[in-house]
């Protein structure tokens, strides 16, 4: 098994220490950080997402794999930054105001980082003003809103309406998720997409990024 496979398998097997050791070894042996990211981390998290979808892995296993992957990113991130590696896109994530459940955004954040995106996780109980500030400050391509409760999910519409009011809505794609949400709510709130779980959130984010880049760079 090559070193990239060793990293990938360690992440899938939730072995953080091994994943970090193999990643360090790969860098020491001269592999480019970008290659490690693209050929080990991204496929590993993609497999973990698929296994969740198939009912092979569950939230604890996903969390552990994501943490192993985040450990390897600690090694890769400074190198990627130094080499001017261009991010695949920037995404701001948070749970809406009044809702302190943040396991979903944390998990989605880690999965998206594993997919090569720049992720800013605002965490739980985030106000619409904080979302606006973060979107502007980071020039985010995507804003991801989460809510677990039927009583707090309407906060997503408040954020979207607030961005409209401030003239920012058209500059950012908005995706929503959370256990009690569905596509119908997402449409009612005016979101660009809905994902039922972390794995689907990665697929959706990639699609929205493609759409966003086409909008930002229209064909002449």
């Amino acid at each position, binding site marked *: 098994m090559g070193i990239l496979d060793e990293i990938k398998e360690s992440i899938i097997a*939730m072995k953080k220490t091994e994943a970090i050791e193999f990643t360090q070894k790969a860098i020491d042996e001269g592999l480019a950080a970008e290659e490690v990211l693209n050929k080990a981390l991204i496929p590993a998290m993609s497999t973990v997402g698929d296994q969740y979808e198939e*009912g092979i892995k*569950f*939230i*604890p*296993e996903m*969390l*552990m794999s994501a943490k192993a992957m985040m450990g390897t990113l600690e090694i890769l991130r400074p190198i990627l930054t130094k080499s001017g590696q261009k991010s695949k896109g920037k995404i701001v994530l948070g749970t809406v105001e*009044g*809702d*302190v*459940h943040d*396991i979903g955004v*944390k998990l989605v954040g880690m999965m998206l980082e594993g997919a090569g995106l720049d992720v800013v996780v605002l965490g739980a*109980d985030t106000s619409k003003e904080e979302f606006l500030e973060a979107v502007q400050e980071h020039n985010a391509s995507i804003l991801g809103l989460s809510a677990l*409760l*039927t*009583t*707090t999910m*309407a906060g997503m519409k408040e954020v979207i309406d607030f961005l409209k009011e401030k003239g920012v809505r058209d500059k950012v794609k908005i995706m929503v998720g959370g*256990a*009690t*949400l*569905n596509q*119908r*709510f997402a449409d009612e709130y005016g979101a660009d997409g809905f994902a*039922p*779980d972390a794995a689907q959130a990665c697929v959706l984010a990639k699609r929205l990024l493609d759409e966003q880049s086409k909008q930002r760079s229209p064909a002449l």
Partner: protein
Amino acid sequence: MYESKTTEVTPMERMMAALNGQKTDRTPVHVYPRWAPLEYLGLTFKETWDDPDLWVKAQILGQERYQYDCVIDYDMMGPVEEFIGTKLKYPVNNVPMVKDPVIKTKEDMKKANWKLDPRKDGNMPKVLYVIRRLKEELIKRGHGKQQVPIMTWGSCPARTCACLTGFDRWFEIIIEDPDWAQELMELALPTWLEMVKAEIEAGADTVWVNDPVSAADTISRADYENLCQPMERRFIEAIRRETGANITMHPCGNWHDRMDLVAQNQADCYFLGPMDIRLCVDKITEQNKAGNACCKAINGNIGAATPSTTDGKTVLPYASTMNQSTADEIEGECKEVIKAVEEEGDLRCVLGPNCWAPAKVPPINYDTVVYAARKYGQYDGKPQA
């Protein structure tokens, strides 16, 4: 039009009979009425938390307005976890949520307040006060006879632990250190058992317990079977032994792949989450027939009456059906649920949503559930109870 046979049976008789597997005039309705009464009176949750008599007033008037068959105390408030040491956030119009879990390391277990007296510690007496006041008011309004039952609530050990450690940490502990998870649940079980005993002593007529952290979309069946399920069963059996109360369990979320295990928790009734109703009825009936379960009723589960979802993977909508659907759609769902639960004859249906009825449900949708229970849930022949 249909002929109503509902006039001589009280909600108390109807609900308690159904929870015991018996028939009265018709299927009772229980919607876990947190938001309907608050919205009916234009109150926020925080207002009623600050003034418990307002909660009592809302519960009484809400039941009189909508005619469902059960009232509740504050429910799902976390007063036990709060006293143990977890810091809660109190939003303006929602129930408290975990803000700062008390247990981050094993060392933190020593600083937790595991010994508690619900009659005097923290916010627990406030919950007991509400139950006592509900009882008084219901007896007064029933001219000396309580006509509407009070359902109280208890937290299954896995949920309590998740509130004490934080949800993501709890999931890590399950994988990294199952022995620690077991130790935590052993400590958590008696805390909520004490609270439930005090709630029943204060006047609650029945209890529901829930577990939102062991569903098929959170942990594996093996982890549930080996860790959480045995503790749930012990919790439920302890409540029955200590209080004699009838117990409803709410497996919150999608539990399709483990309903056989859930049924063995020995609850009298299961308040089903967003799961296929026929699949659940089949699995529970199977366990009943094998002598592994003693389920008498199923509460739920409007929004999940879709016959094509028995694959166990299809994501069904949560209680949002209640505020997204039309009255006609709700009526159709109710009809399907009653039919699915009652057609074999062994289980009673307690009609309701597939999780907490959410905020901002159009009043007509609640009315429709009660209407549907009266229309489709009438039993032929003489009532058993």
